[in-house]
C-alpha cells in the first residue's frame, strides 16, 4: 500500500506539474503594457510554489513508502518534534511567502494607486443585463448627463445608457456596442453598472474590474498590440451571465481617429 501511494502521489504530481511546464493551456498572449511584468510575477510565484508542491508531495509519497510497517522495520522514533527544525522552516516559509507578496506589490500599486494620465483616451463602460455599452465623450472630452428614467435597454445605443440629449455635453457623445481603442495609449475607463454587479474582464489585457451599481470606478490600462480581444463578464449577474461578452478592437491611432470622427459626424 505504501508503494502504491508513492507511485500514485508521484504520478499525480508529475501530471499536474507537466501541464504547467508544457503550457498546454496557458494565458492568452499579453497585449497590454502591464502584461509582461504581471506574467513574470506569475512565473516567479509558479516556480516557488511549484518547488514546494513537488517537494511536499514527493516527501509525502516517499515517507509513506519508506516508513511503512513491515516485519523487521525499525521501531518508530519516539519524538515529540524538533523546535529548531520548526523555527527554521517557519522562517523560510515566511521569507518565501512575504518575499513574493512584496515583489508583486509594486505591480498592484502601478495598476491601482495612480490615476490615468491626463492625455489618455476616455471611455465609459456600462454593464447591464446582459451587455456592455461603451460611451465616448467626443471632442469636448466630457460625458453628458444620464438619467435612469431615460434608460431603455431594448432600444440599445444611447438609450441603453439613458443619455440625456438635452445636456450640451452629450451632443458629441456616442455609444457603441464594440469597444475601440488606439494602440499604445492609456485608456481612462469609467466603470458603471445599471442593475447588478458586473465585472469587466479582458484576459489578454490582464485586466479585470467589477462594475458596481452606485459607484463610478476609474481604472486604466494600456493596450500595446493591435488586434481583436474578447471581453467577458466575470461577476455572476443573472441568467445571461455566460453570454454577456463583447469585443475590444485595438487599432492604430489613425484608424481610431477616423472611427471617432465618423461617429461624431453621424451625431451631427
Amino acid at each position, binding site marked *: 500500500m505504501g508503494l502504491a501511494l508513492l507511485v500514485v502521489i508521484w504520478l499525480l504530481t508529475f501530471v499536474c506539474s507537466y501541464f504547467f511546464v508544457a503550457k498546454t493551456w496557458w494565458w492568452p498572449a499579453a497585449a497590454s503594457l502591464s502584461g509582461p511584468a504581471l506574467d513574470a510575477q506569475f512565473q516567479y*510565484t509558479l516556480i516557488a510554489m511549484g518547488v*514546494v508542491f513537488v517537494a511536499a508531495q514527493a516527501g509525502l509519497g516517499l515517507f509513506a513508502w519508506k516508513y511503512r510497517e513491515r516485519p523487521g522495520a525499525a521501531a*518508530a522514533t519516539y519524538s515529540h*518534534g524538533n523546535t529548531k527544525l520548526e523555527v527554521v522552516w517557519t522562517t523560510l516559509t515566511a521569507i518565501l511567502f512575504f518575499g513574493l507578496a512584496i515583489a508583486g506589490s509594486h505591480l498592484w500599486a502601478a495598476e491601482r494607486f495612480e490615476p490615468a494620465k491626463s492625455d489618455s483616451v476616455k471611455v465609459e463602460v456600462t454593464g447591464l443585463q446582459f451587455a456592455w455599452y461603451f460611451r465616448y465623450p467626443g471632442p469636448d472630452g466630457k460625458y453628458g448627463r444620464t438619467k435612469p428614467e431615460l434608460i431603455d435597454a431594448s432600444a440599445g445605443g444611447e438609450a441603453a445608457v439613458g443619455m440625456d440629449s438635452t445636456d450640451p455635453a452629450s451632443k458629441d457623445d456616442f455609444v457603441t456596442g464594440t469597444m475601440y481603442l488606439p494602440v499604445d495609449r492609456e485608456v481612462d475607463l469609467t466603470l458603471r453598472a445599471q442593475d447588478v454587479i458586473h465585472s469587466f474582464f479582458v484576459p489578454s489585457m490582464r485586466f*479585470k474590474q467589477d462594475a458596481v451599481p452606485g459607484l463610478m470606478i476609474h481604472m486604466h490600462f494600456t493596450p500595446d498590440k493591435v488586434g481583436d480581444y474578447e471581453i467577458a463578464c466575470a461577476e455572476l449577474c443573472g441568467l445571461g451571465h*455566460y453570454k454577456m461578452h463583447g469585443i475590444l478592437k485595438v487599432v492604430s491611432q489613425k484608424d481610431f481617429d477616423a472611427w471617432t470622427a465618423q461617429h461624431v459626424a453621424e451625431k451631427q
Partner: protein
Amino acid sequence: MHNPETPKQDSVVHAGGNGHGGVHVHPAPTSFIRKYIFSTDHKVIGLQYYFLALTSVFVGMYLSLLMRIHLVWPGAKVLGMDIKPETYLALLTMHGTIMVFFVLTTAPQGGFGNYMLPIQIGAPDMAFPILNMLSFWTTFLGFLAIIAAFIVEGGAPISGWTNYAPLSAIPSAGPGQGLGEDLWIVSIALFCIASLLGALNFITTTLDLRARGMTMMRLPLTVWSWFITAILGLLAFGVLLAAGILLLLDRNLGTSFFVPGGLVVSGEMIKHQGGSPLLWQHLFWFFGHPEVYIAILPGMGVASQVLSTFSRKPIFGYKAMVYAMLAIGGLGFFVWGHHMFMSGMSPYSAMAFSVMTIAIGVPSAIKTFNWLGTMWKGRIRFTVPMMFAIGFVSLFVSGGLSGPFLAQPALDIPLHDTFFVVAHFHLIMGVAAIFGIFAATYYWFPKMFGRMMNSKLGYLHFWITFIGAYAIFFPMHYEGMAGRPRRYAQLTEVAYLHQFWGLEKFITFAAIITISAQFLFVINLFWSMFKGPKAEINPWESTTLEWTIPSPPPHDNFGGHVPVVNNGPYEYGVPGAERDYIMQTDPAHVGSSH
C-alpha cells in the same frame, strides 16, 4: 518507562452509585421518539447531524453532476429535466449553499464534534444537552427551508452562495430571486442561529467539562480543532445573521442597505436609494472567510489524530499545531478583503488584506511540515482512515499552494472569479475537508456502531476518490489561467472558451466516475452498520479516551465512571512500554506531558 516516583494511579475513578460527572444525565430514554428523534444525547445528535450531512452531500453531488452534464452537453435532458441557463445558476447556488453549510459545516463540527468532543474530554454529555437538541432541529428546519426553495414558484435562487446584492436584493433581477431567494435567507438565518447555539455549547463544554487531568495542553488536536472552530463560529455567524436580516428587509420592506439609487432592472426603475452593494460583500466575507476555516479546521484535527495513530508516533510539534490552528483562526478574521480585490474597494486596503492573507500561509505550512514530520521515521499502518488522512495532506498541499497566487492582488486581477479560484477552494475546502470527514468516518465508525467497516471497499473508495478529486479539480487551474470565468452556464458564447471542450469533457467524465464511487462508501457504511464484524474497544490501538469505553459507548459514555487523564494524547511508539502506546488514562508516563 514508568516513573518510579509516581504513585500508581487508577485509570478510572469509581464515582459510586449512579453518580455522574458535571452534567445532569437523565436515565437512558426508552421511547423511540426520545431516544432517536428528540434526543438530548450528544451521540444521537451527532449522528443526526452526520446523516443530515450525508443526505445533503448527495443532494449537492447530484446538483454538481447536473451542472457538469449541462456544461458539456448543453442541450441534453437529464432524467427528463430540461436544464436552462437559469437552471444552471440555480443548481450552482444550491450546490454551493448546501455543500458549504449543510455538509462542510455540519458533518465535521455538528456530527463528529458533537459525538466525540464530550467523550474525548471525559464528559458524560455536552454542557447544555437541551440546547444541543435545539441546535440540531433548528439546522434541520434550515435544511427544509433550503430544499423548499426548489419547489416554490420561480424556483431556487440564482445569485450564488455568496448572494451578492443587488442581484440578491431585487426580486425582478432574475428567476428564482423571488420567494426562492427569501427561503434561502431564512434557511441561512436559521442555520446561523443553530450554529451560534452549537458554538456556545462546544466552547462551554470544552472549558468546563474536561475530566480530571485533562489540561488544555493534553487535549487531542481534534478537540482543539472543534474548540477553535466553535470560537470562529461564535464570532462569524452573528455577522451573517445581521447581513441576512438587512437583506431580507431590503427585499421585503423597501429599505436600502445594499441597493443604490437609480437602478433599472428588467426595464423597471427601482425605488431604492443610496445603499451599498459593497456593504453586503464586507459583511458576507467577514463571515465567509472564517467559514472556510470552520470547514477545514476539524479536518486538520482529524488528520493529525489519524496520522499520529497510524504512524505509531507522537504528533510532531503538538504545541506548534495548536498555535498554528489558533493563528489560522485568528488571522482568518482579518483577511476577508482578499475576496474583494476587484470589487472597487480601496486599493490601499487591498495591500493590507494581501499581507494578512499571505501571513496565513505560514501557520498552514507549519501544519503541513508537522504532518510530514509525524510520518517521518514512523511505522505506518495503511488502514483506510490513514489513507484518507494522507490524501488529506496531499490535497491540502495542492489546494493551499494556489493561495499565495490569489493573495497577491496584482495576480488576482486576471485570476479573480476564474476557474483558478474554483480549483483552489474546491481542493482545499471542498475535497480536503471531505477527506477529513471520510478519515473520521472510517476511523470512528467502529466506536460509533460497534462494528468494523469493510476495508476492501474502503480502499477502492479511497483510490477512486483520491485520483478522481485530482482529475476533476486540478485541470481547472489551467482553465482559470487561460481566462475561463466562473459560473458560466455554457461555454458556447465566448469564442476563446471553445478551447476547453476537451478538458471540460474530461472533467465531467471524472466527476461521473468519482460520484459513482461514493455509492461504494454508502453501501459500505450501511452494510457494515448491520453486518460488519464486531469491533473491539480499541481496534486501532489508539490512545484517546473514546477508546477506553465500549463500542458503541453507553448512554452516559463512561458508565458511571469518570476517567482520569495522566498522559498527553499521542503517546505512540513509546520505548520500553508494554504495548507500543500509552493511553491517556494509563498511569503517568515520563516525558508524556508536553
